[in-house]
């Protein structure tokens, strides 16, 4: 994330009704938002919906944006909240099916990747492929934090701003996410000795 000062200039132009400035903001952040949404939801259509809804909300509430803050973290926060809402709705829907099942016992739900295996598409290393699968088994909040830290390359402070949590919480969640992933890889029989990063 960069071009912060340019972002603010574009926001100010957008506030004056300059749609081309707003379109430039969309162009700058649409991919970041899509990747975040895709990592959370693993569904192209839903990820696109999140991007559109996020920018609609951005435009609608542009005049409430605190210009002393970074636009990038604000827009990521909006998208993150939308993703979490969708994830919860999806989970509720799956739970309602689950309750109708014979045993009426709520089992843990694992959401399955509905898209193509990106690692297969991009030919990444086997560890990256395994990690990508493992991240899908993390709770959404850990998935988000992994995406923000490693794919969006945000600093801890920026992640705290996006998630609206204290800095210590960000670090604690990231540590727990690392530990979860390490344990999941070990359970899958993928030991550190096989990690050729």
């Amino acid at each position: 994330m960069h071009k912060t000062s340019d972002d603010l200039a574009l926001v100010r132009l957008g506030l004056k009704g300059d749609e081309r400035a707003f379109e430039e903001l969309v162009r700058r952040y649409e991919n970041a938002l899509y990747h975040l949404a895709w990592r959370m939801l693993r569904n192209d259509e839903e990820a696109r919906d999140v991007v559109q809804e996020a920018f609609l909300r951005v435009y609608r509430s542009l005049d409430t944006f605190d210009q002393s803050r970074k636009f990038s973290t604000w827009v990521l926060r909006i998208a993150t909240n939308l993703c979490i809402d969708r994830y919860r709705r999806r989970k509720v829907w799956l739970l309602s099916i689950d309750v109708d099942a014979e045993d009426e016992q709520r089992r843990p739900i694992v959401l399955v990747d509905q898209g193509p295996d990106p690692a297969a598409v991009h030919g990444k290393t086997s560890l990256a492929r395994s990690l990508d699968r493992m991240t899908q088994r993390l709770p959404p909040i850990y998935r988000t934090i992994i995406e923000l830290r490693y794919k969006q390359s945000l600093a801890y402070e920026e992640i705290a701003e996006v998630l609206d949590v204290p800095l210590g919480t960000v670090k604690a969640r990231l540590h727990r996410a690392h530990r979860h992933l390490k344990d999941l890889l070990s359970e899958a029989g993928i030991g550190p000795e096989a990690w050729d990063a």
Partner: protein
Amino acid sequence: MACPQRQRALQEYLSGDLPPVAARELEAHLESCADCARDLAAYRRLMAALSELPDAPPVPGLHRDVMAALRPQLVKWRHRRETRTQLVMRRGLSAVLAGAFALSLSVALWGWMGRIGSVATARFSRDLVGLWKSAQELWQLVRLFGDVLRTLEPAALGLWEALRSSAAPLVPWGPLILASYAAVAVLGGWLCWRAFHALKEGDLSHAS
């Protein structure tokens, strides 16, 4: 994992967040604890591998799709984003154009009625009932004009947005908008001049 209490310290050590004193203590511990040393190596590789996580699949046409979904809403909300000056300019220009149009329409109607014939026009000017009916007809005409405008507005806006999005990088829309305003104003002025000229020439002389 021999030292669960050190899992967080190991990660903080790798990310440089561990205070120097704690870091030195951990380094000393690592020399004597093979499990923690293995976990440290595992976290180091894990963090490096996370940076290599595959990207989402490529999304061709994302910008086009996003903007296509956004544009109707942007049009709807555009007026909310106007500054006071833009609002005054827009409303002022609209009022001037509407005034020019109404004036030219009224004068043209007056002239047209004058040409109908002296008797009918004389009756019109004297007969209050006739005046009321004429006013009603004029009001119907204005309402019809408003309905036509309302019907055409969405189509015109859609056409405008389509033109603007397809030719946005090529066309200087600002000067074109001003030029179109100027053209409409000139047209309105010309209509008025024609109507007044017709009056001066005595087209309505029959009405008196």
